[in-house]
């Protein structure tokens, strides 16, 4: 019975210790919240022990934050006017 329990715990995904390379491959899934919870916990555990990965993850997350806040250029007024004139002319023809 004990051997059976040990075997079960060995096979359980929660026992899987993630390494730096696996973390690199799963990083987007991790930051997007798409990693299953047991693997997510393993990543969090790994980050407590591995400073290099912690910095990598933090800068990776920050990169995404910068992208999300990149903002938009204003639409030039003449582009807006030309677009509406173009559409008035072409759409009424069709």
């Amino acid at each position, binding site marked *: 019975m004990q051997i059976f329990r040990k075997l079960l715990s060995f096979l359980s995904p929660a026992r899987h210790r993630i390494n*730096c*390379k696996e973390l*690199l*491959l799963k*990083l*987007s*899934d991790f930051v*997007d919240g*798409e990693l299953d919870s047991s693997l997510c916990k393993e990543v969090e555990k790994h980050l407590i022990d591995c400073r*290099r*990965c912690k*910095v*990598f993850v*933090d*800068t*990776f*997350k*920050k*990169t*995404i*934050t*910068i*992208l*999300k*806040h*990149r*903002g*938009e*250029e*204003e*639409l*030039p007024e003449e*582009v*807006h006017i*030309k*677009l*509406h004139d*173009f*559409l*008035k002319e*072409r*759409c*009424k023809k*069709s």
Partner: protein
Amino acid sequence: MAESEELLVEKCKKGDFQAFEEVVNRFEKKIYNHALRILSDPSEAEEVLQDTFLNAFKNINKYIPSGGGFDRWLYKIATNNCLMKLRKKKAQPTVCLDEPLSMEDSFVKVETADWSNQPDQLLLDDEIKGLIDKAISHLPEEYRIVLLLRDIEGFSNSEVMEILGLSLPAVKSRLHRARLFLRGELCKYFENC
């Protein structure tokens, strides 16, 4: 109260041009920015903007509402118009992201400087914006478009999959590599600061 997009689209389907102009007003800035980021050329972005809304008007009856998907439908038209422009242009040099992910290239070799705790305001200044835009323009188009739709336009992986007609693993893989590349470019910048 502003009319819902679905209601406006229904009016457009009945030939209401005023309703269509309202749709254009709501999306023109977003579509222009999307095209500009893909093409890096204001005059081509303007052409894509015009073509996209003309295509949308002509094909509005083909649009089937599916839970607020009008923006996805428009982005699909705009992205296809951008891709047609890119195919006509001479290929611009881009980075190669097709190699398997390697630890050596990524972070084992070098101790990474931690710039993640820089104030957000500093990270959003014009110099960083310029750097990000330049790095995005160096991405191969298939990576660039996925990154733009996902991280800048804010679509989900499944929505990007639908817009581009790609599999989910392809979307995730391209997104991940594009993000790694951009992170690497930001690291180079902060190492030299």
